[in-house]
């Protein structure tokens, strides 16, 4: 059994993503997913949100959240399919799809947060 280099890296990404998601997502989701749509809180005006998003720290934090969050999903979801549904035979294609989607999503996030804004 050879020592693996890939698994520790995957676990690091998974862990970092899980921690960021745990700390940041509930607050953001309550605001934009529930409280503002239901009218419990007034939506901030466009100019303010744009200014907040354009701030370099915001961009960096949100980029980290998106990229690491997607890699967190990729690692956890592939294990759920491989162990949970016993699809080990298809593990190559499952890995390719999960990490492929994570990479694609990360590129979209980088484009939106760093270039378009």
């Amino acid at each position, binding site marked *: *059994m050879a*020592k*693996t280099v890939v*698994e*520790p890296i995957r676990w690091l990404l998974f862990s970092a993503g899980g921690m960021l998601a745990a700390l940041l997502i509930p607050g953001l989701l309550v605001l934009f997913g529930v409280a503002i749509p239901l009218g419990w809180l007034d939506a901030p005006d466009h100019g303010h949100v744009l200014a907040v998003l354009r701030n370099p720290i915001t961009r960096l934090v949100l980029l980290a959240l998106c990229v690491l969050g997607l890699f967190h999903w990729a690692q956890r979801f592939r294990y759920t399919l491989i*162990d949970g549904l016993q699809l080990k035979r298809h593990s190559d294609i499952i890995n390719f799809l999960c990490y492929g989607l994570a990479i694609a999503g990360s590129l979209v996030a980088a484009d939106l947060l760093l270039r378009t804004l």
Partner: protein
Amino acid sequence: MADRITLQVTRYLPEESARPTSQDYEIPLRKDWSILDGLNHIKDHVDGTLSYRWSCRMGICGSCGMTVNGEPKLACATFLADYAPGPVRIEPLNNFPVVRDLVVEIGDFLEKLSAVKPWIIREDEEPVEGEYLQTPTELAEYKQFSMCINCMLCYSACPVYGLEPGFIGPAAIALAQRYNLDSRDRGSHERLDVLSTDEGIWDCTFVGECTRACPKHVDPAGAIQRYKPTAVAETLKAFLLPRGKR
């Protein structure tokens, strides 16, 4: 409390049938009897053909692991009165091949245990007088993991071990940690080669069932989780400083 209880015991006699069956035994229900006492009563007075492992009957040898009503338990540490009025289902330990009745094949676990080198590894013996000294704090670092009695209830509880038979398993990793964290040991890099593999710690998805099942409060899930950052650090170090000293 009723004075009798029924045990539904798995019977597997390979010379008679290809599949296990269940056999009911109605036995006295004594308030201080364990499952093991019940099985011994069956063997001595009802059906001498029943096979099962046991030894110390006090929760230290690790021989009598079985599945009781779906949960992995030590037969000597589980009491009939807690399951009254019954019936109580007694099956062999999950995730292991069944040899006969309640006896399972444990060779896989023993191989994996030896693979992690569960002994003090040193390159040289220090010329000390008497024994190596260890402070209480140093002892506390690994003491919890030294409580393991190799009963394999954690392997029975772990879904990953059932799905991936190559997984090295909770007890083996906890015992590797017991030595890694021992101040007298110098062998952690040797154990790293065995632990930081696809079938070592990286198969573990922290289900946590192993810790729940452990009768000795070893917390193997905690041991594995503690080792993951260590393994990451060692891997990165080896990558970035390939000629660093080992």
